[in-house]
């Protein structure tokens, strides 16, 4: 299960240019336990890796000696379609999980980037999600039970197999977005949902971010129940629909029973008003292409800088137009995509000749403008050399001492992904 000595590890395990000395492939919970116990005794730094192609997220590792590849733990432990719960190994890919659930017309309502590759453990640890978070929620809303191996090799569990449960502290929540720094997730139980019977997508165009933002707010303030609601300063669809100048698109998905989809489609124009460029229902193929592009946007295409910004939904539009202008001034054209109902903005900046200080000043601009209104800005991709100066996670304020204590409690020797999380945790 350990990769033969002497072989360079495959690129998938390289984090910020650092390669681990060994890659191990545990095939059972017991093996994960034994490996961690050993690593902990020797103070060996470990990174749990799912399919591993996306390990850029987070700070530069302080140390990185062993990659723990989790894809061997990919069994269905228990699936009760009528109870709408499923328990699987953390190394199962999300695509496989969705395929299993799909056989019964069910799904785990998450549509993160790289659906095909992301593992269940990676989805939990990196809190991955996609456009449908607007109507469905994020992984913390579905994770009802978890098994984790602690840094010292002890197996612990939280939650259970039932959809409603408040016995003991809510451990599953703690591991959502913990980036592998609090333990290795080995098993997860989710509550699942029936797959929508039908779906459709409409593309709306507007002459400015403000108009698009206004329409989005009208939608969230109405009786409509969009499946997703995405605001972008570009269109991922064919070039004929490419956006000019300051134009913005709003992509609105509806899902459920045909009757409710028809009803909403027919009333959409009444709700958003007349201040609109075009409105068009996409074909099945176009909708497919679009939803994949929206999903994968946070990781696709070239970018010198990628940021994720948390804002109030009402602030999105102005933030987008101001940010686009700032980016243009620095010759780093910005592609912006926002989960309009959630206030989450993904910004990707192109321009590979932009000087470092301009990139960093863009990060500053984002942080200053986001935190001014209680928001946050996280750098998701930047050259490794700039990570420290960019302080990728930003500041987490007065809660940080608690986070540090938590980390010290669960991983006292700091062997799990050291240096990769907030405040250098």
């Amino acid at each position, binding site marked *: 299960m350990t990769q033969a000595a002497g072989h360079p590890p495959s690129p998938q395990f390289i984090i910020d240019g650092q390669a681990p000395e060994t890659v191990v492939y545990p095939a059972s919970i017991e093996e994960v336990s034994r490996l961690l116990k050993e690593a902990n005794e020797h103070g060996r730094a470990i990174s749990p890796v799912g399919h591993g192609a996306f390990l850029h997220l987070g700070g530069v590792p302080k140390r990185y000696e062993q990659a723990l590849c989790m894809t061997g733990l990919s069994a269905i432990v228990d699936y009760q379609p009528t109870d709408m719960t499923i328990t699987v190994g953390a190394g199962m890919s999300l695509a496989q999980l969705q395929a299993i659930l799909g056989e019964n017309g069910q799904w785990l309502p998450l549509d993160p980037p790289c659906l095909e590759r992301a593992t269940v453990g990676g989805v939990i640890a990196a809190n991955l999600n996609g456009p449908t978070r607007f109507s469905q929620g994020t992984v913390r809303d579905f994770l009802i039970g978890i098994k984790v191996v602690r840094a010292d090799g002890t197996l612990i569990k939280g939650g259970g197999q039932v959809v409603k449960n408040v016995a003991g*502290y809510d*451990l599953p929540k703690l591991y959502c977005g913990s980036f592998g720094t609090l333990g290795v997730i080995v098993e997860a139980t989710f509550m699942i949902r029936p797959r929508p019977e039908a779906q459709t997508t409409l593309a709306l165009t507007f002459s400015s971010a403000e108009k698009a933002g206004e329409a989005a707010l009208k939608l969230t303030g109405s009786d409509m*129940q969009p499946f997703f609601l995405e605001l972008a300063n570009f269109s991922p669809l064919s070039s004929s629909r490419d956006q000019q100048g300051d134009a913005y698109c709003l992509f609105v998905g509806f899902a459920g029973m045909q009757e409710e989809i028809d009803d909403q489609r027919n009333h959409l124009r009444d709700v958003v008003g007349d201040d609109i460029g075009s409105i068009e229902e996409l074909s099945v193929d176009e909708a497919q292409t679009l939803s994949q592009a929206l999903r994968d946007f946070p990781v696709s295409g070239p970018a010198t800088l990628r940021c994720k910004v948390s804002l109030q939904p009402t602030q999105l539009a102005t933030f987008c137009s101001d940010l686009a202008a700032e980016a243009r001034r620095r010759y780093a054209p910005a592609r912006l995509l926002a989960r309009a109902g959630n206030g989450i903005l993904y910004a990707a900046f192109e321009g590979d000749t932009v000087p470092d200080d301009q990139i960093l000043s863009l990060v500053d601009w984002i942080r200053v403008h986001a935190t001014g209104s209680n928001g946050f800005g996280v750098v998701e991709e930047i050259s490794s050399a700039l990570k420290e100066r960019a302080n990728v996670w930003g500041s987490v304020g007065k809660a940080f001492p608690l986070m540090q204590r938590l980390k010290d409690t*669960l991983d006292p020797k700091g062997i799990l992904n050291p240096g990769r999380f907030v405040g250098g945790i």
Partner: protein
Amino acid sequence: MDQQVLDRLYDIVGPDGVVAHKSARSVYDCDGYTLEKAVPEIVVLPHSTEEVAAVVKFLNRERIAFVPRGAGTGLSGGCLPVEAPVMIGTSRLNKIVHIDLLNRYVVAQSGVVNLWVSNAVKEQGLQYAPDPSSQQACTIGGNIAENSGGPHTLKYGVTTNHVLGLEVVLPDGEIVTLGGTVEDVPGYDLRGITIGAEGTFGIVTQAALKLTRQPQAYRTFLAVFESVHHATQTVSGIIASGIVPAALEMMDTLIIQAIEEAFHFGFPTDAGAVLIIEIDGLAASLDPQTERIQAICKHNKAREVRIARDDAERMALWKSRKRAFGAIGRLSPNYCTQDGVVPRTKVPDILQRITEVSEKYQLRIANVFHAGDGNIHPILMYDERNADETRRVVQAGKEILNACVDLGGSLTGEHGIGVEKMGQMPLIFSPEDLMVMTQLRSVFNPDNLCNPNKIIPTPGGCIDVTTPRRQVPL
């Protein structure tokens, strides 16, 4: 209590913020779990976050343990003072601080009553989705501590799914914000682990709560069955059909009779079981779902399926359901509500076991519960003047919970562990699991001054509910 301590507390919160007189304090001797009682030595009612922080800082310095209390509607003894002389009540933290309609959230102090939040935004077509049956009384702080649910959580989720951020006074008196008013706040989800911590991580003083749009339309059904079996088959059938109802509640004969006697809604008192089924959402989606639900009910031999004619009838139906516990008062001087969970498909099995327990211990047990998520609430009736019957109630309750665990379920779906179920935690958690919980508590509450002797049994297992540490008034 030491006069100097009293004086200092008076200094911080003022005379109207202290309840010192014995008779006034005695109303704080228990919550809705009345099998154990203890009067706090003093109750303080701070008027602001700063006052809470000052009180806690002082108590921390003096090494005096304290217990937070909201409205005291808890059902597991969460705010019972056990070796904690000071009770900190949130009844003066009762303001809604900020309402943001466009971004759909509310910032409310922790003593705000659950229903006030929905009432404050009702006119604008919004609501705060978690709706515990106690919502006219229970507080946001208590809801957060217990991660409370309610009839409509089947579709909308429980408290944790609707809380964006918390302001918490940590047990050392520090004020921190966990989460925020936006989504995806970087760092560990400390908000997530604090929700459901039953007040052992600090005192929540304020919370940012997500608002949800009121559904465009509702349809509420009352389906009448000859037997519990047919009702549970219907529940499974509806779930399997791909419908996610807003609520799926079941009531058995005993509770139907009690409710009918109390509220005269028109429930059939000879039915074996009734289901309250509610669907909501876009009006256009309700007709096709109605047809499906009626077909499923009919297939499972429903005697009758009534649809609430208008909003008034719907409200009357829900009012009866939400006051079901109160109605039991007519049948029995005392009752103990249990809270257990089984996988939804095991509801018939657990009801069978409850019937057996009822016969074995010669107790009347009524069932009214959240069938859609397998969350049972057997109500065990007794007379606390009868010591033997009281003992049998404790024993029967335990046996029902053991059965839930045997069926793959859990000890509590929404009422919490409190003092009541500490002794049974080892049934579902290993020593390692309990150790990590103890360590997590220490991260927030290192000296265990905040709500001690709750949730996690002390090693050695000396805690046993059959012999309450606090005397049950018999």
